[in-house]
C-alpha cells in the first residue's frame, strides 16, 4: 500500500490516471453505458483539437510564458483555408495543410517577436493578439461563415471512423503530435533548452541558451499547432465561422495543460501528464450530458473539476515534499 502511495506521490501522471479511473467508475455506476467502447469513441472525438493545442501550449508554459491567442489563431488559420475552399475550389484540397499551418506559424511568430523585441509580458501581448487575430478573421472573411458545402468531403471524412481503422484519423493524428512533442522535448538539445529557460530565465543565457531564439520557437510552434487545429476544426465540424471557430479554445487548452501537472511557474511538465489532462477533460465533457446535468450547471461543475484537480495536486505535492524532507532527515 505504501509503495503504491509512494508511486502516486512521485508520479504525478499516476495521480491523474487514478482520477480519470475513479471519475469513470463513478459515472459508470450511475450510467453503465458510459463504460462502453462507444463512450470511449465520444470521449476521444472530443479531445483531438485540445490535444494538439495543448502540446503547443505546454511548451509555451514550460518556457514560463502563456499564449492566450491560440483560439484566435485557430479561427484565422481555419478561415484562410475555408476561403480557399470557397473561392478557389479548383486548388488541391490538401493545400489547406501548408496554408493553415503556415498562417498559424506566422501569427505565433508575430507573438514571439512582440514579446522578445519589446520585452513585453506574454499574457498582455497574446491578450492583444487574441483580439487582433479575431478581428482580422472578420475582416478577411467579410464576416461570412464558410458553409458545410464548401469544406471538401475528404477533409470531413478524416473525423469519421474509417472502414479500415474504425477510429477517425484525427485521433491518430493528435496522438502522433503528442509522441512527436515528447521526442522533441526529451531528445533534442533545443527541447531541453525550453525546460532550462523556464526553470531559470536569469541563468539561461549564462548557460549559453539563446533566450530570444527559444522564445520565438515556442510561440511559433504553438501557432503552427493551433493552425493545424484549425484544419481539424473544419474537418470535425464541417464549417468555419468567424466568431465561433476557436472561441474559448485557450481556456480548455490551458485547463488541460495545468491539470496535467505543467507548472505555471515554468520548467516543469510532461507530455504524458498533459495527454492525461486532456483525457480527463474529455471524460468530464462527455459524462455531464449523459448524467442529465443541465447546461446551466455544467460550467460550474467543469470549473470545479479543474480546481479540485489542482487542489489534489497541491496536497499530494506537499505530502511528497514532506516525505522527501523526512527521508533526507532520516539518512543524515
Amino acid at each position: 500500500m505504501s509503495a503504491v502511495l509512494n508511486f502516486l506521490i512521485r508520479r504525478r501522471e499516476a495521480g491523474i490516471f487514478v482520477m480519470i479511473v475513479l471519475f469513470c467508475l463513478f459515472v459508470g455506476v450511475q450510467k453503465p453505458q458510459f463504460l462502453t467502447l462507444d463512450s470511449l469513441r465520444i470521449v476521444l472525438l472530443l479531445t483531438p483539437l485540445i490535444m494538439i493545442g495543448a502540446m503547443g501550449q505546454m511548451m509555451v508554459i514550460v518556457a514560463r510564458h502563456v499564449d492566450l491567442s491560440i483560439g484566435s489563431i485557430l479561427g484565422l488559420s481555419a478561415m484562410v483555408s475555408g476561403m480557399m475552399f470557397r473561392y478557389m475550389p479548383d486548388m488541391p484540397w490538401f493545400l489547406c495543410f501548408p496554408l493553415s499551418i503556415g498562417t498559424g506559424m506566422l501569427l505565433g511568430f508575430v507573438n514571439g517577436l512582440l514579446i522578445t523585441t519589446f520585452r513585453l509580458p506574454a499574457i498582455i501581448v497574446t491578450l492583444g493578439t487574441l483580439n487582433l487575430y479575431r478581428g482580422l478573421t472578420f475582416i478577411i472573411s467579410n464576416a461570412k461563415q464558410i458553409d458545410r458545402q464548401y469544406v471538401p468531403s475528404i477533409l470531413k471524412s478524416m473525423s469519421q471512423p474509417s472502414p479500415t481503422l474504425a477510429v477517425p484519423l484525427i485521433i491518430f493524428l493528435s496522438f502522433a503530435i503528442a509522441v512527436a512533442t515528447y521526442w522533441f522535448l526529451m531528445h533534442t538539445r533545443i527541447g531541453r533548452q525550453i525546460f532550462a529557460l523556464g526553470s531559470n530565465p536569469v541563468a539561461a543565457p549564462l548557460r549559453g541558451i539563446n533566450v530570444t531564439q527559444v522564445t520565438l520557437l515556442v510561440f511559433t510552434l504553438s501557432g503552427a499547432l493551433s493552425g493545424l487545429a484549425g484544419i481539424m476544426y473544419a474537418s470535425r465540424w464541417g464549417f468555419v465561422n468567424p466568431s465561433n471557430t476557436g472561441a474559448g479554445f485557450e481556456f480548455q487548452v490551458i485547463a488541460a495543460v495545468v491539470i496535467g501537472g505543467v507548472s505555471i511557474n515554468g520548467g516543469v511538465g510532461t507530455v504524458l501528464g498533459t495527454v492525461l489532462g486532456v483525457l480527463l477533460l474529455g471524460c468530464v465533457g462527455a459524462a455531464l450530458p449523459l448524467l442529465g446535468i443541465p447546461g446551466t450547471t455544467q460550467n460550474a461543475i467543469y470549473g470545479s473539476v479543474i480546481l479540485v484537480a489542482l487542489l489534489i495536486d497541491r496536497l499530494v505535492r506537499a505530502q511528497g515534499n514532506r516525505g522527501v524532507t523526512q527521508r533526507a532527515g532520516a539518512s543524515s
Partner: protein
Amino acid sequence: MLKKSLLIGLAAGLAMVTTAFAADPIKIVYIGKNTGNPYFDSITGGFEDACKEKGCEFEFVAPATAEATSQIPFIEAQIQRGVNVIGIAPNSPDALNQVLDDARAKGILVLTVNGDLVGNESHRDATILPVDFTKTGPNQVELMGSLIGYKGEIAILSATTEAPDQNTWIAAMNDTLANDAKYKDMKLVATVYGDDQPEKSTTEMEALLANYPNLVGVIAPTTVGIAAAAQVVQQRGIADKVHVTGLGLPSEMRDFIKDGTVKAFQLWSPYNEGWLAVHFALGVLDGSIKNEVGASFDVPNLGKVTIADKNAMIAQPELTTFDASNIDNFNF
C-alpha cells in the same frame, strides 16, 4: 438684432440642409444581432434587393458579439449619420429603450425585424416577424409525427436554456403533444440544451442516444443544434432509426438532405423579412401606408400584409418545409 439675423440665417441654412437631405435617397440601416451569423445574410439579401428596386440606400452593421448592450454604439453612430430608417434585431428586450427613443425623437423610423422588444413595444414604431410564432411549435410536432408515423419516443435539442423564442416554441410543442389526440403515441422523453455550440450540441445529442436507446426522433429548433444532431446521425449511420428535424438553414442542411440523413426540416424565409421591411418603411415615409393597427397594404411577392396588434407584421403565415424536392430552390 444681430442675434435675430443670425437665427434667421441659421434657420435658412437648416432648411437648405433639410431640402438637400430630402433630395438624397432614403437611407436604411439594418443592425443585426452579431456579425458572422449566416442567418442575417439572408435577411440582408431581402433588404438589398428591395432597396435596389426602390432606389434606397442600404447598409448592414452588427456588433461582434450578441450581448445585450453591444448594439447601443451602433445605433448612436447611425443616428449621427442621419439615417431615415433603423431596422434592428434587438439583443435585449429592454437595454435599448433609451437609445431607440433618441432615434425616434430625431424622426427616424425604428423597426424591430426578426425579434421584438417584448414588453417594451412603445420604444419602436413597428415590428416585422418572420412567421406566426404560435404555429412554430405545432408545425414542428406535425412534421416530426409525419416522419415517425406518429409513434415513439422523441426528444428536443434546443439552444440555450434562456433562449426566449425556443422556449416559447418548446412550450407550444409540449402543449400540442399533451392535448392533441393525434400525437398520443408520441412521448417526449427529454429536452436538452446545446447552447448553440457545435461541440456541446454534439455531446448532448450523443448523450440522448446513449440514455434513450428507443429514441426515434429529435427536434432541434435551432440552426446549430439541428446541424450538430444531423452530423451525429450521419456519422453513426442511423438515419433510418433516428429522425432529425427542426429549424435549419438550407445552406447548412443541404448536404444532410442530399445524403438522406435528414428527410425534412423547416424554417421561414428570412429574406422575406428584409423585403417586407423596406416596402413598409418606404410606404410609411411617403405616406402611402398608415402605421396603424388594422391597416393593410400590398407587397410584391408577399401579397396583402395586415398590421396586427402592437403594430406587428408577419412576413409569411406558415413555416416553409424543406426537403429533397425543393432544397435547391433556396440559396440562403
